[in-house]
C-alpha cells in the first residue's frame, strides 16, 4: 500500500471515529488530499474493518463505525441496553415511515385502533419521529415524520431503502408466490427475508 493511501486511511478512520454523526463521502473528500478519491479510501476502509470487531457501515447518508452484530450478546454485559420497542410502537413507526408526513388520526385509521400517548412518547423519547409542520386543514393537525436517528437506528442509508409496499404485501404464509406480478429475483429476496422475520 502506498504511503499516500496509508495516510488517507488513517485520516479517514480517525475522522469517522471522531464524528458524532455519520460522515458523508463529500465531507470526507474535503478532509483528504486532493488526489485521493474518498470513495476509494472508504472502500478500502470497509474491507480493512470487515473481519474486525468494529465495522464500517453506511447509514443515514454517511459512514459510521459500528460494532459487529455477532458480538452484541457479549457487549450487552458492558453497555446498557434499553428495552426493545413494543409491537405497537414498531407498527406505528412503520406507518409513519411509509406514510410521512402523516397525522395522528391517519395513523389511527390505518391501525384501526387509537394511538396511545405512551407509544407516541416512546417514539419521541427515542428520537425516531418528529413533528413536520401542520396540515393546512381545519384543526391544523400536526404532521409526523421520521428523523435521521430513525435511519441510524435501523442501519438505513435512506428512506428509499425501505422495502416497497408491493414487496411487503407478499404474504409468506399464503400461496402467493406464483401469482405475484413482481420480477422474480427481487421477489425471491423478499420472500427469503420475509420468511425469516415472520414470527407469528
Amino acid at each position, binding site marked *: 500500500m502506498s504511503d499516500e493511501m496509508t495516510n488517507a486511511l488513517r485520516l479517514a478512520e480517525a475522522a469517522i471515529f471522531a464524528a458524532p454523526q455519520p460522515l458523508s463521502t463529500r465531507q470526507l473528500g474535503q478532509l483528504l488530499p486532493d488526489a485521493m478519491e474518498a470513495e476509494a479510501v472508504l472502500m478500502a476502509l470497509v474491507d480493512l474493518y470487515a473481519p474486525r470487531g468494529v465495522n464500517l457501515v453506511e447509514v443515514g447518508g454517511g459512514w459510521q463505525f459500528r460494532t459487529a452484530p455477532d458480538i452484541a450478546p457479549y457487549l450487552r454485559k458492558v453497555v446498557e441496553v434499553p428495552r426493545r420497542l413494543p409491537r405497537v410502537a414498531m407498527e406505528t413507526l412503520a406507518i409513519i415511515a411509509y406514510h410521512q408526513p402523516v397525522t395522528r388520526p391517519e395513523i389511527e385509521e390505518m391501525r384501526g385502533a387509537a394511538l396511545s400517548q405512551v407509544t407516541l412518547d416512546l417514539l419521541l423519547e427515542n428520537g425516531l419521529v418528529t413533528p413536520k409542520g401542520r396540515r393546512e386543514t381545519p384543526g391544523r393537525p400536526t404532521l409526523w415524520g421520521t428523523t435521521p436517528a430513525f435511519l441510524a*437506528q435501523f442501519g438505513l442509508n435512506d428512506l428509499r431503502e425501505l422495502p416497497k409496499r408491493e414487496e411487503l*404485501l407478499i404474504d409468506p404464509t399464503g400461496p402467493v408466490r406464483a*401469482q405475484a406480478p413482481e420480477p422474480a429475483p427481487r421477489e425471491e429476496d423478499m420472500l427469503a427475508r420475509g420468511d425469516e422475520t415472520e414470527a407469528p
Partner: protein
Amino acid sequence: MEVEALVVHLEGFEGPLDLLLDLARAQKVDLAKISILQLVEQFLAVIEGARRVRLELAADWLVMAAWLTWLKSRLLVPELGEPDDAETAAEILQARLMDLQAMRQAAAWLGQRPQLGWDVFGRGVLEDFTETDRSKLRLEMSGLLSAYLAARRRAGGKQQYRPKPMVYFSVQNALERIGRLLGSLPDWSSLEQFIPDNVGDGLAKRAALSATLVAGLEMAKHGRLLLRQDERFGPILVRSQVAELEGRHE
C-alpha cells in the same frame, strides 16, 4: 372457562382491525382473495362469544360488529340494496386489511434489522474536536425593529393616559336622598328638586337626573310615593304616599 379465554384473547388485539387481519390470515390465502363473508362471520362469532361473558365491550368493537353485520346482510342478499354498495364496502375492508398487513410486515422488516443500541453499538465516547468562536455578532433586522418598537412603546407607556375617575350621583344616593326629603314635602313637588345642587353640570347633572328618576320609580313601585306627569315631556311630580293618604283622610 373456555369463554373466559376468548375474552382474554380479544384483549390481546389492538382493536377490531387487528383481529380481522388475524382472522383473514388464518384463511391461508392471499389477502386479496380472502372470503370477506367468511371473515365477517368469524368476527361476529368472536364478538358474540365475548359479549356473552361481558356486555361492556369497547365501542369500536361494537361499531365494527354493526358495520360488518350490515355488510354480511348485503353480501348474502345483494338484491336488497344496491349490490355495488356491499362490493365497495368489501373492497374497502380488504384494502384496509392489506394496508395494515403491509405495515405489519414493514414493522417486522425493521424489527429484524440490527438496531443501533441493541444489536450494534456506536462509539461509546465521543471526542470533541470543535472549537467555538464567539467573536462574531448575530444581528437580524427583525430584532432591530422589535427593539425599536419596544423602546418607543416603553417610553410612550411611561406617559400613559389615565382618565379621571368619574363619580356620579348614583341611584343609591338618590334613594337615600328622596327617602330623607320626602317627609318634608307635603304636596306634589318636582322630581328635579331632589337633585342635589352640587352635582355640577353636563353629564354629571344628567346622571343625577336619571338616578333620581330610577330611584323615584323604584320607590313608587314599593308604594312609598306617587309619581305624576301631566303632559309629555312635562315635569315629573312626586308626592309622598303618606301625604296622599293623609290628604284623603282630611
